[in-house]
């Protein structure tokens, strides 16, 4: 690498906004409600996301009850079932995971980990949260609107999504759903610009990109991707809204619905699918990359070892991010698109497996010759590795175009994406909460409850979704309200469904324990101190815990080393904080 003249010599201030320039609140309202402090916004985002996520969790129980005991719970009719899966899927992907990872963890960690006072535009950041809240409320309004929420599946494929054969198609459901998405995107853009610019332009002295913790790399790349991918969803939503409200025909060809000729003509449903997945595939990595980043840090801290192959890890994140924009049509292998696309997209899709594989190898190689503390965050990180590898490998089945033909739209796909998205990143979220809760509240979460929570969630979730693959292999289609008599639904498969439902309810119960733990420890948890995990990154070096508005008191930290100086030979302790001066430039020798 070229020897770069240090920009530390630049007469550029550490932060464009000095502490005095921050808007320090004066009233209760501006401290806790309309706060411009990224940390408060982060907590608002997280609590909202988790609350709406719990709604989606309850919906999943209802769906599971229907699948295991069709006909027993009469209030779940076909309409309701489809409304439930739609809201379940959409909430989980967008309003829970995207919001929690970027709005929640992003807001909390970016300024702290980079040694900044706050996000660059606190006011826009605050607006971002309130628009997100509005989007959530509009979404929830669907449950109370006449006709209920939309039941079009989270992919909202037209023409079905806007026709009367689908719940909410000719009522308010679809309109509210699309409006909520549009609001979410606007709100997200305000926050997302903040995260990106803070990372690019608001770092502390000495904080180069290649010294950032991988958490920030994951969140940063995911945010950039979101800023480029959400436009496609925005456009698709606007166009579908016009089709539904104004009667345009963007996605609507000539249609005879139940014997009546509709006034549409000439549109192309496939176009929507392309737009949706041009957003949709990056989206699944938007929720995966922050998890990748965070889990790298969890493993490194709790194994007391630097993350193995940091450079490769960064490049892998960036390459995965870029490639994920050219694989979208692997969701459309059997959609009737130009069949020759299959060759291109199968190839690009499987290429992504290589950088992802490197990440997996580096996680496990970090464990190798480490000093593994089996703390709860570490347990969740291990759970993540197992479930992510499992789910990622089934992705290779689906990515290989011919193999996808029999498996597409079966429970195999459902099992794949739950394992890789519904379990693995959720594991990381839990690990991250156990890891950063002490910084946010000053207290530790209870250890015993934590262990029970981990084992039930990890094993339970694995038992839900591992066997589910075999239902798909058997041929059971997804989005079936009930399968009834069929070759693909022998009595044994039915028993399996009952087992899966039991497991889902068990895992659900364990989440109650977690919520109790989180509330209980707020008061009764062990005192954490400023740096309970003995970690190197800047958020653990704040003068007070929880950190105040402005994060670092009078003086901003200066960074002298990368984020992974654990167990450095010759050092007195097994970690060296990033802001510890490095007179002999040792860190550089070892790390570059």
């Amino acid at each position, binding site marked *: 690498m070229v020897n770069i003249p240090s920009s530390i010599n630049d007469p550029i201030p*550490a932060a464009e906004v000095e502490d005095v320039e921050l808007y320090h609140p004066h009233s209760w309202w501006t401290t806790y409600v309309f706060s411009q402090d990224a940390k408060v916004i982060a907590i608002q985002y997280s609590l909202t996301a988790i609350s709406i996520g719990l709604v989606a969790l309850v919906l999943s129980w209802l769906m599971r009850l229907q699948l295991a005991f069709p006909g027993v719970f009469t209030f779940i009719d076909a309409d309701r079932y489809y409304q439930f899966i739609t809201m379940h899927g959409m909430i989980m992907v967008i309003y829970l995971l995207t919001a929690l990872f970027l709005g929640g963890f992003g807001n909390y960690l970016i300024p702290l980990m980079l040694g900044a006072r706050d996000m660059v535009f606190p006011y826009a950041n605050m607006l971002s949260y309130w628009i997100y809240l509005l989007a959530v409320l509009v979404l929830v309004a669907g449950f109370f609107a006449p006709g209920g929420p939309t039941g079009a599946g989270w992919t909202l494929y037209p023409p079905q999504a806007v026709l009367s054969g689908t719940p909410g198609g000719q009522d308010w459901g679809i309109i509210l759903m699309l409006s909520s998405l549009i609001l979410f995107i606007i709100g997200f853009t305000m926050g997302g610009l903040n995260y990106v610019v803070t990372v690019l332009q608001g770092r502390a002295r000495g904080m180069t990109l290649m010294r950032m913790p991988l958490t920030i790399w994951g969140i940063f790349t995911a945010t950039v991707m979101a800023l480029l991918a959400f436009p496609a969803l925005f456009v698709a939503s606007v166009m579908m809204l016009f089709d539904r409200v104004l009667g345009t025909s963007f996605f609507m060809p000539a249609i005879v619905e139940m014997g009546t000729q509709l006034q549409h003509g000439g549109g192309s449903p496939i176009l929507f699918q392309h737009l949706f997945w041009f957003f949709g595939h990056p989206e699944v990595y938007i929720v995966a990359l922050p998890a990748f980043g965070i889990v790298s840090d969890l493993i490194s801290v709790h194994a007391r070892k630097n993350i193995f192959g940091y450079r490769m890890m960064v490049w892998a994140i960036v390459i995965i991010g870029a490639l994920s*924009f050219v694989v979208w049509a692997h969701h459309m292998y059997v959609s009737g698109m130009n069949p020759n696309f299959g060759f291109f997209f199968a190839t690009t899709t499987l290429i992504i497996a290589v950088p992802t594989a490197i990440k997996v190898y580096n996680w496990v190689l970090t464990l190798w010759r480490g000093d593994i503390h089996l703390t709860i965050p570490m347990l969740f990180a291990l759970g993540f590795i197992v479930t992510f590898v499992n789910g990622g490998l089934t992705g290779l089945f689906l990515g290989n175009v011919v193999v996808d033909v029999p498996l597409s739209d079966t429970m195999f796909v459902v099992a794949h994406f739950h394992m890789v998205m519904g379990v693995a990143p959720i594991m990381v979220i839990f690990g991250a909460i156990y890891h950063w809760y002490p910084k946010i509240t000053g207290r530790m979460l209870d250890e015993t409850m934590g262990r029970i929570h981990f084992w039930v969630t990890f094993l339970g979730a694995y038992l839900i979704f591992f066997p589910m693959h075999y239902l798909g292999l058997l041929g059971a289609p997804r989005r079936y309200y009930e399968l009834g008599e069929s070759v693909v639904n022998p009595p044994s498969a039915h028993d399996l469904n009952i087992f899966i439902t039991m497991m889902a309810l068990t895992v659900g119960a364990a989440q109650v324990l977690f919520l109790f733990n989180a509330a209980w420890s707020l008061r009764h948890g062990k005192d954490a101190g400023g740096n309970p995990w003995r970690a190197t990154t800047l958020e653990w070096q704040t003068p007070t815990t929880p950190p105040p508005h402005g994060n670092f008191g009078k003086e901003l930290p200066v960074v002298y080393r990368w984020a992974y100086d654990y167990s450095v030979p010759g050092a007195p302790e097994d970690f060296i904080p990033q802001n510890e001066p490095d007179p002999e430039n040792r860190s550089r020798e070892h790390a570059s």
Partner: protein
Amino acid sequence: MTQPATQPAIQTEHQEHPIKLYLVVWGMLFVLSLFSYMVDYLGLQGYLRWSLILLFMILKAGLIVAIFMHMAWERLALIYAIILPPLLVLVFVAMMVSESHYVLSSRMTFFGTGP
């Protein structure tokens, strides 16, 4: 380990160019717009029409971005960060050209009358 928060005020290089530059570019944009308009006015067709339209379009876009938006005076770090990502849209466009042809050919082969 730490440093004082009081820092010299921000020093960004300001974009100071002679007004004449902007007038010249303005004029060029006028002329290019006139040219693209003439393409239609004169009723050129086929490849000629398309290459001219695209040529004038790219020239105009380039002038606006480079001079009016000062991209020409920015550092490469910013230039690449802004110019490269839109290539992804171009991939998308290329795919959709092919897809549209495919959909059209399917419609022409199997459908009879009307829309």
